[in-house]
């Protein structure tokens, strides 16, 4: 029953966005895979989320002071934006170029920080690095406000190299030295903020970047073997020339979009699981001089991507937003989104507040006994609810055809429509046994149809509880 094109499209939408319902998948398949990839890569061709509507119905969206409103607003966008890849890239970048609310302590600045990725996330990586270096949220988070000509603070200079562009090392070699960190940090002196408005009486104002040339160390610096009176932009230019940068970004993209890699600290000494794939992405990065759109086009159209189904453990954001898109709930602004948005936190991903500047540990580390129970219970609660439009749609599709159905067809049908999802022989056998134990699956009378609907909902609950469903 599983259609190859549908299965591939479902994979694309799970990875490049937050998933899609069967109806949407059929429409995308009709459009074609390459055309759909193009559409994803050009968010500007889709309407943006209607912020006015959000602000009108939920006034707190217009004054995002508390962090949880920012998280809620972001989950709303993940569920509803037509610019799915743009929003997915924001999630990607927020886990690489990290800032965290625990230190920033300014809700609105966290959403302003996300806007950076919406604007530049699919553009040129060099532009992104320069804008990141000027972004007030980042300037505060990594203490560049304390980075002065007469008193250098190395926090940003270090993380820029270690976590945001090149990484510590590659192929067993280190990529930069402590002297490079010092030079880099000196180059960013003076990259500071306007003095902040006092919080009272009008509340927190948006911070603004201010370059202070009198606070900038304009002396000669040697960075990665090149000497000059480097300023921040020059550093970024030199970083862009390094093969390590292409490698680091390629590997992050692979880890986020293709298959779970080991955690970043292991990358210096542990080679990528698919070196050919990484080289392909590196080439795309280098040839396009850092155009993320080009790299992603290569990635989504590659065989290594298409064949990487279910090679990633879903992140909590993907679980939550993906489930809401599947059951088609909160597709409009209404009350009740807050507890759903908070589920990401209970599942281990406190959006806009990663535990450290290194971001979240992904892949299998999303899972522990607490978070696994949260994930299973949350999704099962949603898909077991026959009042949800998306669940009804699945029941309707299951109800097409003859009025009886074998347990095997029943299970396979549910697996197909909820995903399509692939499960192990062991899981499939257990599900079929369970379907058998419920008696014949008939839909001739109204009473039988009602019972059938309940059994579909319950089967969906069991499917989302499988170990395999934790993968995307």
């Amino acid at each position: 029953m599983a259609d190859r094109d549908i299965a591939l499209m479902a994979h694309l939408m799970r990875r490049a966005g937050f998933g899609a319902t069967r109806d949407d998948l059929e429409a995308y398949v009709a459009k074609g895979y390459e055309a759909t990839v193009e559409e994803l890569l050009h968010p500007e061709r889709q309407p943006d989320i209607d912020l006015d509507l959000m602000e009108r119905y939920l006034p707190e969206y217009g004054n995002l002071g508390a962090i949880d409103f920012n998280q809620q607003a972001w989950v709303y966008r993940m569920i509803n934006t037509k610019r799915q890849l743009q929003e997915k890239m924001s999630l990607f970048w927020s886990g690489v170029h990290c800032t965290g609310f625990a230190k920033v302590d300014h809700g609105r600045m966290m959403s302003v920080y996300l806007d950076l990725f919406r604007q530049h996330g699919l553009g040129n990586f060099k532009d992104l690095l320069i804008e990141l270096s000027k972004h007030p949220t980042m300037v505060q988070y990594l203490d560049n406000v304390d980075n002065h000509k007469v008193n250098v603070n190395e926090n940003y200079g270090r993380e820029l190299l270690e976590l945001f562009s090149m990484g510590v090392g590659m192929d067993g070699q280190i990529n930069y030295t402590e002297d490079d960190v010092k030079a880099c940090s000196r180059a960013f002196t003076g990259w500071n903020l306007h003095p902040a408005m006092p919080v009272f009486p009008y509340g927190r104002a948006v911070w603004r970047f201010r370059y202070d040339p009198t606070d900038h160390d304009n002396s000669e610096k040697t960075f990665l073997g090149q000497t000059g009176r480097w300023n921040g932009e020059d550093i970024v230019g030199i970083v862009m020339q390094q093969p390590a940068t292409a490698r680091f970004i390629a590997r992050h993209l692979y880890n986020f979009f293709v298959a779970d890699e080991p955690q970043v600290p292991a990358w210096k000494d542990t080679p990528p699981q698919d070196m050919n794939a990484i080289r392909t992405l590196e080439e795309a990065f280098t040839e396009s001089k850092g155009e993320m759109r080009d790299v992603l086009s290569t990635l989504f159209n590659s065989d290594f991507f298409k064949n990487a189904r279910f090679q990633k453990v879903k992140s909590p954001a993907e679980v939550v937003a993906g489930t809401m898109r599947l059951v088609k709930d909160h597709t409009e602004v209404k009350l009740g989104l807050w507890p759903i948005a908070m589920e990401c936190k209970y599942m281990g991903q406190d959006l806009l507040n990663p535990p450290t500047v290194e971001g979240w540990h992904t892949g299998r580390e999303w899972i522990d006994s607490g978070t696994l129970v949260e994930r299973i219970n949350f999704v099962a609660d949603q898909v077991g609810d026959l009042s949800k439009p998306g669940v009804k749609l699945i029941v309707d599709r299951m109800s097409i055809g003859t009025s009886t159905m074998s347990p095997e067809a029943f299970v396979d049908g549910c697996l197909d429509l909820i995903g399509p999802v692939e499960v192990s022989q062991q899981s499939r056998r257990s599900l079929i046994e369970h379907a058998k134990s419920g008696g014949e699956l008939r839909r001739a009378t109204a009473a039988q149809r009602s019972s059938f609907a309940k059994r579909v909902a319950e089967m969906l609950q069991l499917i989302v509880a499988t170990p395999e469903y934790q993968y995307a």
Partner: protein
Amino acid sequence: MASNGKDRVLVVLSLSGGNDGVNTVIPYSNPLYHDYRPTIGIPEDQVLRINDEVGFHPSMIELKQMFDEGKVAVFQGAGYPHPSLSHFRSMDIWHTCEPDKIAAEGWLGRAIKQIDPTTENVLTGVNIGRGLPRAFVMPGVPVASVGNLETYGVLTGVSGEAERMQALEVFSHMYAPAIGSGPVTDYLRETGTGALKGADILKEAPLKYSSNVEYGNFPIAWGMRDVAQVHLADLGVRILYSTSPYNAFDTHAKEAGDHARLWRQVSQTVSDFYQDLREHHRGEEVLLFMFSEFGRRAKDNGGGTDHGTGSVCFVIGDHVKGGLYGEYPSLKQDDLEDGNLRYKVDFRSVYTTMLEKWLGLDAKPIVGGTYETLSFL
């Protein structure tokens, strides 16, 4: 081990939001107190006096009684160097013992690792509440996070008792170990089986529980009642955590009413909790630590107080050498730092004492350094 043969247990209660220490342990005979708090100062004759200088907030009737029985250690001026006035950041600091850098591992997670290095018991640590506090975060350490003990379990969304039992049967089959599935799926299966086991074990707790004590009907009490139920169910749980509603103690405004109500609730609940345990002869092995992420400003703002430092924390239990510890931070203008009290007791020494003297653990790797062991245990 306690004298009743039971393993010692640590219960942590977080008073979230920044409890106003100056209005909790009140320096009533200091004229500066009344000068600083024209709006929310507690009148001298209402204070529950401990000595000629300080006393408890009038709401803390039961806690005062327990204090008089010698069971309450009060730490005045609890804090740490370079204090943060941000809720999230300061709470993280109390959770991770790292004031100067951002850390991801928590002290309770590390403690559990020492207590149960091979995870013989998936329930060595239990958190009452949704989402795991960073105090418990430690790779490889499973901690059940129980939002509501009565309804905790796997696949709680399957309706119907019989249907749910069947669903859990299916679940256990799907998560049984299988050959050839790869390390991540193996791990998923192991974790799922462990979670099911933990949930199965935990669901016994409310069923086994019966008590004459009637707890209050508010969230602080519900949480501590769940803690009591889990402890009394004898599941080998060694560390339990509960919290007030998020930010409840953040009394920027309306402090007079809110703070009084909160301490009424805490005092009553702590008393009910210990009474409950005592009736089951299970009180002496339980140590209760109550803390808040920071204190509040020395002067009130006309209706409440703003974020501050140098708050109070409490350790309560039968084996505690009760009394006042630390030193009341000076209220003199020249001694304040930006209007805030200077801390006197580093919270890590309170942790160190509890970890070493109560739980018999090696505190240094847990709190990240050597801190003074205090004499309250």
